[in-house]
């Protein structure tokens, strides 16, 4: 599994790490039962604090995407739920792609679209959280 992080982004590194692992699961780069690297080796490889990896792994365990087994490490557990989530994600991607295409047609630049997305997510985040 090849991961890349962007420390300059305004997003916590553990969230980036979670997204990348989720992405790996969605694309099939990570399969059910696959072992994930140990906290130590992943931290050293990515040059991030071990706490960052611990946080990402425990959140992913909470989501049910991985399983932490006493003494033997972290394993991917891609259950049916995860797979249907994958389908959802792919559908969502398609819709977003369509939207972006239309915005491009309207003459918007990538950066403008990105910032607009950020603003709208922030705007709706509270109501979504309440739902």
């Amino acid at each position, binding site marked *: 599994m090849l991961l890349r992080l962007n*420390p*300059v*982004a*305004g*997003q*916590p*590194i*553990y969230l980036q790490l979670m997204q990348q692992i989720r992405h790996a699961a969605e694309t099939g780069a990570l399969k059910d039962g696959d072992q994930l690297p140990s*906290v*130590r080796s992943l*931290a*050293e490889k990515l*040059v*991030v*604090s*071990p*706490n*960052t990896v611990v946080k990402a792994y425990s959140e992913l365990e909470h989501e049910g995407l991985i399983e932490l087994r006493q003494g033997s490490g972290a394993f991917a557990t891609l259950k049916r739920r995860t797979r249907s989530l994958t389908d959802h994600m792919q559908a969502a991607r398609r819709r977003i792609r369509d939207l972006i295409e239309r915005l491009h047609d309207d003459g918007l630049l990538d950066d403008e679209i990105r*910032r*607009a997305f*950020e*603003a709208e997510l*922030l*705007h709706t*985040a*509270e109501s979504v959280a309440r739902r």
Partner: protein
Amino acid sequence: MIDGPVIQTRSLTKSYGRLDAVRDLDLSVGANRITAFLGRNGAGKSTTIKLLLGMIHATSGDASVLGARIGESKESREMLRRVAYVAENKPLYPYMTVAQMIRFVSSFYPDWRPDAAERLMKEYELPADRKVKSLSKGMRTKLALLLAFARRPDLLILDEPSEGLDPVGIEHLLQHLVAQSADGISVFFSSHQIAEVERIADHVCILDKGRLLVDASLDDLRESYRRIDLVFPSIPLEHEFRMAGVERIETSGRQIRIFSSRNSRTVVQRAYELNAVSVEVTPVALRDIFLETVREN
């Protein structure tokens, strides 16, 4: 594993005449994580570290390291055995060879790990028979790091550890700090290199002119600081946006730029209420957070 903070200071102050090198510092450094001490040159970082290690004495206030009060000679002597310190100017014995230096230092520490020292010797390509005085700055830094990493301290304090290292050396250094942290060692390092702090730190303390300006987890900073650019149909009133978390407001015609340390949602909400025609929210990198807080000071 250690419970509670590994470093704690209360109103720690160090004055040189009328100049406060460190002013009223309340610092709490948690165990088992990597904490970065970020500040400009002369911000008071080295002074703070020297105070913590009992190398200089505080004008007022107090501090404890690994639970031991600094200045209490017996307690702090015991504590210093559990702390590995890499000084800014890497004071080593110039007339010794690298091998002699390592043997000399290792004799003082029962927790010395010869295997780790050997591994680092190879990795750093340190010449065993060269005299310390003939080493380059980068090599001296590597030797000083080896001497700290080959022990198994509870707390590792490093003052500008990357100074004098080339990019490959810096990469190695960061990897080692991560490895130390994985071993359960608490790491506290000062730096003015934002890029390295941004990569490995769990927690960041920003010091400027002797004062602590930011003391937060890097995740929290990444999540909460935002730059919000707004455009209104008519000239907006700045005071509408004076609210908690708004650090700075810049106005130019119908545009407003807001730099917020938290509550960006409330700001955006307010902007929509005031019929903003454009709302753009961008995350703020640590570099900008640093520059903004230092500038406000």
